[in-house]
């Protein structure tokens, strides 16, 4: 099952520093083997897209990377730090890895600005003025500075997702993880979120994106991987991946979503 791995040794165009290294990683939910012997390397500045059918373990994989889920076997090394039981490491990793969820997970009891400044003030110990300045800068970047004083419930889905992206960026992470960031959105809002993500990719951020947006994947991704039943089945550059999938399962899956 790892024969595709060799094909994936396309080193990143930008840099060859390893940012994320996953080696022989296995994860179980009780008796259920969700992730099977995963090997994956992501270099600094590299953009990786993950596709696969529902339940194949895509979310679980990227949630392992910022330790929202524990893995039982193998190693995950993020930015030179091995994830394990050490809680200090955990807290450190989470400040370096931003994550954007399918359903935003904004804090409904706080204004947009408070959502954005919470991490910098309480975790990074920034002064309030600094935190607000950074927050406003990122709100400009995601093109909704005028919403700063509203509450999440007053924003559209697309706006909320852009706030969620800005909230992660305010922590100035080295890696951004996206778990189907557009699949809870109406079609007309998908583009505004993808635009923000394309901008982000242009800044050279290391990104892992679970998505089935093929056009987007082809524009930004350096690589695409296909997961099924806890395995990484295929790994290739995105154009080849989407246009000429090699594995039968990939072909089947892509024909369904197109």
């Amino acid at each position, binding site marked *: 099952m790892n024969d595709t791995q060799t094909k994936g040794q396309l080193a990143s165009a930008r840099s060859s520093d390893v940012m994320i290294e996953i080696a022989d990683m296995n994860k179980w939910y009780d008796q259920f083997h969700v992730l099977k012997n995963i090997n994956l390397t992501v270099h600094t500045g590299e953009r990786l897209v993950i596709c696969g059918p529902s339940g194949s373990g895509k979310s679980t994989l990227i949630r392992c990377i*910022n330790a*929202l889920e524990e893995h039982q076997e193998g190693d995950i090394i993020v930015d030179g730090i091995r994830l394990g039981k050490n*809680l200090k490491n955990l*807290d450190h990793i*989470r*400040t370096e*890895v*931003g*994550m954007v*969820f399918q*359903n935003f*997970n*904004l*804090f*409904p*009891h706080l204004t947009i600005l408070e959502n954005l400044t*919470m*991490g910098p003030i*309480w*975790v*990074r110990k920034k002064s309030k003025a600094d935190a607000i300045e950074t927050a406003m800068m990122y709100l400009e970047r995601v093109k909704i500075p005028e919403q700063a004083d*509203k*509450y999440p*419930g*007053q924003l559209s889905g697309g706006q909320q997702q852009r706030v*969620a992206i800005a*909230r*992660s960026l*305010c*922590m100035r992470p080295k890696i951004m993880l996206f778990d189907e960031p557009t699949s809870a959105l109406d079609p007309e809002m998908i583009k505004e979120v993808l635009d923000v993500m394309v901008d982000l990719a242009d800044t050279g951020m290391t990104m892992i994106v679970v998505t089935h947006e093929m056009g987007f994947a082809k524009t930004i991704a350096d690589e695409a991987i296909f997961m099924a039943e806890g395995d990484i089945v295929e790994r290739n550059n995105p154009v080849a991946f989407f246009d000429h999938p090699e594995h039968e399962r990939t072909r089947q899956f892509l024909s369904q979503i197109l």
Partner: protein
Amino acid sequence: MAIINANQTPARAAPISETSILGWLHKNLFSSAFNALLTFFMLYIIYQTVSGVLTWGLFNATFVAENRRECFDNSLTGACWAGVIDWFDNIFYGRYPREEIWRIDFGGLLLALWMAPMWIPRVKGKILVGVSVVTFYPFLAGYLFSGGDKGIFMQVMVAGAIVAFAINMANVVTGLTKNMALNAFLVQMLGQSKSSGKTRRNILLLLATVAFVVAFVWQMGWNVEGVSWTKWGGLFLTMVISGIGIASALPGGILLALGRRSKLPIIRVLSTGFIEVFRSVPLITVLFMATTMFPLFMPEGVVLNKPVQVIIAVVLFNACYMAETVRAGLQAIPKGQAEGAHTIGLGYWGAMGLIIMPQALKHMIPNIVGSFIGLLKDTTLVSIIGLFDLLGMLTSISKDVPWLGLHKEPLIFGAILFFILCFAMSKYSRHLEVKLSSDHKG
């Protein structure tokens, strides 16, 4: 499809049944013959009740009399409020020495002043106000109410309370006049706005220490006469027990609820056991246990007086109920909130304190206040174990020789008092709920 209506339909005024009083009456009270009959019948009952109550309680009532005999001489069909009025001091203050009652009033006034800033919009640092009340006021009030010698610990806490109170009041003044917090104001006044956070903190610490020393020296000269707890009673005692119960049940409940959800098995099992034991026993049993069992557990020489035993029992009992309320509130918060908090680097306590608990508490306000109301009413049980709380005092009126057999009036008076207290709490919780929910959805 053909165009059905090219012009916009103009808006019309609502039909008369929706706007006029007559329309409302017709729609709600007299919409059919049967409804009309029912309306008249209910009006008749209401009239009978109200007029009966007013005649007995007001028109035919006696307000000034020496004893029950005189009440009867004055009117046989009216209430004898004179007995209640004669006992007012007892009802409100118990058997507290009459010339010392000012201490209770003063304590109440201090509390009101201390808490008031929480409702003044422009004052900064409301959470600190709340925390300072809960940590310091009990000691100041405790000394004020019981008096006598104060040990070194008590002296420190009283001095701390004075400083906290003074800071709080000064903070209100700067908040109202300059619209800034006291610390910001002090820093600015001393011309230190440009200094680093560390110097500023040190300067503020120095100021606080000086204030503490001054307060400590000042309070050493204080000397109020000791009042034994056996003299405490009436509404005062009810307020002390339920006040401490209310102030500590929520923090205690939060800790127990977190314990019950903890990943560490020992903490989880202990919390769960504790909660379940207290929840499956009636309060009165806990009260009896507290007064008979605590003395056995206490080290030699330590004697807890009855109000303290009762307060411990009430606090533990209510914390366990509160724990379940809090747990339900926590369960209603989606898991994504904790995950969102973790992804911006907040740890367990950060996520809990800044993200999850504030949202959960907001949902729980009606239940929390419901528990508080229950707690206030449950404190009447302490009269069974021999404390003369409000209810205890009210029932002793009928045993006082001049007012022998006067049951009804004191109990009705007590009911009115409890109603006022509970209704106020309930209204306030409603207000909070509306305020908090309008904050977020706009």
